């Protein structure tokens, strides 16, 4: 007898339902969860991303700019730039206000650069979480 494999189908949600939430979560860190009325989690995510980003700025971290060259350089600089942008309004405000820190040797600046990237990546996690909530995969 052939073994029956139960395939659990994920509930499908239209793009028009989840896209605004994910977009909101990108632009304002934590706002996706606020919109979905997960206030406690929203505040923790917003605070974490904001504190990480602010420490990155206060440690005078550099924002990555897309650069081409060998493969590793392209991945690091373009990926870093993409991750920086994932902080949403924090990134755009900072760059529009003229923050342009050059790369300087030293562990504090280096940590700052990593904190700025990490803030963006944390926001990506928050966006994915907001997507899972709005698509019914998670409470």
């Amino acid at each position, binding site marked *: 007898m052939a073994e029956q494999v139960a395939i659990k189908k994920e509930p499908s949600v239209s793009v028009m339902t989840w896209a605004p939430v994910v977009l909101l979560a990108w632009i304002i860190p934590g706002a996706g969860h606020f919109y979905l009325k997960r206030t406690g989690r929203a505040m923790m*995510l917003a605070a974490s991303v904001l504190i990480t980003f*602010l*420490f990155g700025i206060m440690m005078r971290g550099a924002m990555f700019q897309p650069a081409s060259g060998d493969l590793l350089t392209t991945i690091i600089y373009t990926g870093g730039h993409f991750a920086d942008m994932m902080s949403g309004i924090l990134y755009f405000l900072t760059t529009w206000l003229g923050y342009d820190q050059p790369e300087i040797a030293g562990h504090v600046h280096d940590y700052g650069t990593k*904190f700025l990237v990490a803030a963006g990546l*944390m926001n990506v*996690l*928050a966006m*994915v979480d907001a997507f899972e909530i709005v698509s019914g995969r998670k409470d």
Partner: protein
Amino acid sequence: MPKVNLSHFEAALLFALLCSVVLGVVTKKTDQERLRYGLRSFGYFVAVMFGLGWLMYLGHG
């Protein structure tokens, strides 16, 4: 914006704390599980930090 000067240890500890909060919030389903996962994640971060620190110290000679 004021400039801060953190040591390696302080910066890594702060990074571990903030990452653990986010990982705890987005990973689990109940608040109890989130708290437990966040604390465990922070513990792992700190353990790896000390482990790598000692490894580098001993490897350096």
